[in-house]
């Protein structure tokens, strides 16, 4: 019994990471119909920059917002320089190459300047685990699914209640018409990328006290979160969060009952099966394209 509870708890935490990072993919896809493969690396960047600032003496409550803001700037730069110029035609895919390349470059730069080794980010919530029923979890880890759900509701409120949010929905619905209505789709895409990067960086900062911030931490997370977003049907925020959290839990159970080596093999196989059953994603809707 203790085991099952343990896998559930750590799975919720891991799922929270996937959900937050996948939400970023969702936001960016809606605004520009492009996926940003540097997204895993802004997750890493948020953690790494916070560690560096804290080591220089800043209190973590100041370092974290600065790192999130810096990540947002990077997100905006990626949109402006690496995605927009390569996204002009309806079926353009040049942004795949540019963002994958930039992601690798960001990781290499971090390895050269920050070093390859993980460094700790102290947090009072990662010191004493809460234990019950033979299982335990650090309070810090529970912040992640909470943040993911909060981000999901926050995004919904943003999209429904604010002008900017509604403008984003308009661009997602029909880019050309939105432009005709006076909304600048390029500016919307820029803001969307910045917002997505900020959320991704937040995920990295929240988990860093538990796993140590290091340059290699982002690549696989980014890839899996992208998978999660696709399987969820990338156009649905709630679906993305639900699938993200479920995937984290499933991974932990695979680790516990089969082996940690099987985690990725079985996990990705399940993703492929899910897509075979639900080609539009589990929560996706069929896209109607008028020709």
């Amino acid at each position, binding site marked *: 019994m*203790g085991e099952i509870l343990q896998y559930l708890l750590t799975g919720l935490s891991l799922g929270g990471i996937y959900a937050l990072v996948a939400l970023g993919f969702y936001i960016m896809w809606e605004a520009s119909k492009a996926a940003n493969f540097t997204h895993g690396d802004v997750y890493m960047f948020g953690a790494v920059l916070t560690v560096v600032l804290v080591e220089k003496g800043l209190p973590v409550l100041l370092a974290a917002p600065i790192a999130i803001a810096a990540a947002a700037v990077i997100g905006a730069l990626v949109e402006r320089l690496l995605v927009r110029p390569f996204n002009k035609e309806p079926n353009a895919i040049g942004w795949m190459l540019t963002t994958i390349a930039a992601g690798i470059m960001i990781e290499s730069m971090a390895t050269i300047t920050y070093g390859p080794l993980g460094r*700790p980010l102290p947090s009072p919530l990662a010191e004493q685990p809460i234990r019950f029923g033979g299982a335990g979890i650090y309070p810090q880890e529970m912040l992640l699914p909470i943040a993911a759900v909060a981000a999901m509701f926050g995004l919904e409120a943003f999209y429904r209640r604010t002008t900017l949010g509604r403008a984003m929905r308009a661009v997602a619905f029909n880019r050309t018409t939105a432009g005709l209505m006076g909304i600048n789709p390029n500016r919307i895409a820029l803001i969307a990328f910045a917002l997505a990067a900020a959320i991704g960086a937040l995920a990295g900062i929240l988990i860093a006290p*538990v796993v140590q911030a290091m340059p290699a931490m982002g690549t696989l997370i980014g890839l899996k979160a992208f998978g999660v977003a696709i399987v969820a049907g990338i156009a649905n925020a709630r679906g993305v969060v639900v699938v993200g959290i479920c995937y984290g839990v499933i991974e932990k159970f695979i680790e516990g009952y089969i082996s*940690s080596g099987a985690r990725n093999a079985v996990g990705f196989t399940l993703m492929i099966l899910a897509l075979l059953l639900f080609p539009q994603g589990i929560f996706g809707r069929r896209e109607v394209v008028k020709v």
Partner: protein
Amino acid sequence: MIWNFLRSTSRAPAVLAGTALVLSLSIAPANAQKAEPCIAGSWELTGALAHTGLAIKMGIDAAVDEINEAGGVLGQKLRVIAYDDQGEPSRAVDNARRIGERDNCIIMIGGYRTPNALAIRTVLNEIGQPWMGVISAGTRVIEWESGKNEWMFRVSAKDRWVAPFLVDHALQRTKAKKIGFMFEATGWGQGAVPDVEAAAKAKGTALVGKETFNIADQDMSAQLIRLRDAGADTLIFYTVDRETDAILRSMDRIGYKPTIVSAWGIGVQLGKTAGPLTEGVLVHGTFAWTGQLSPRAQKVWERIKAKEKLKDPSELVLPSGTANAYDAVYIIAEALKIAGAYDKKKLRDAFYQVKYEGIIANYDPAFEKTVERHDAILPAHYKLLAYHKGILLPVAQTPHALRF
């Protein structure tokens, strides 16, 4: 045209002499194994474990600088050449060829990773290149399956000797007499399984549990729950810093606090990232630069500190490796003096005659003519270190020494 050229009598002797010279140069190398006074290594200088290559180079530089300041060896100053293999075995093979053939260095120094050392065994044998390991503790690096190892020597630990050392210390400390084993799923970790099981059997006990995990795993709760349920109160670790951090946290979550006796995959870095969770964890090593140092080791530390601009010995991230490399260079220098020439075969034969007192041990002699004894550091020289307040120290200098 050439005939007209040669017909001129004044040119003929020069041409004949030139031809003779070229012919003699092309015949000579097959017999002599005269080499350059350079010490070359294929190390991981960039990439995830770049700190390991740099740590080895620090020890080598310190020794070479000292030796050159005293006039070098056999009247020549030693040079250090560093090649980067990024931890890739195939690059290590390329570098071994480059060092042995193109640079023709008198000796090649090994790096951190056992797989790389295993990969170059055939190449070294083919070229006839002396090699000195300074970490790569895998037993098979030196004790080849074929039983023939003519060129590879090592100043480092040997996994087959480390396992009994760890089992001994685990048995001294276990109250329930139940020992478990946690190892990483790599060549190093998996290679240690037969060594640890044999060592346990030799002491009349058996492991109550054996669990493995993969590199980059962040949660080992499943494995630890199984070990805890098997009753293991002491665990032997064959793991490295990053994953051990995750293991310690997983233990913290489930409230499982066994005694840990670990091979030297964990070190200074773990103390920095896991902090108080490392308190009392025991580690095998060959040397510690923290705590009380011998006068000679103190001087070496001062030299490294000045050259690398360090402040504290805890900044040496691979303390055993740096010390191994330092002693290794001096053993090579002693062997060169005995050999009397920069000749690879003479150097190799001279190794068996070296007696030398280094900072790690008194090597008396350093090597013997059995394949087992191509390892210079003996189990009697192994040290037990312990984490105390995040710093790795000789266990006697911490509250974790056993009091009898």
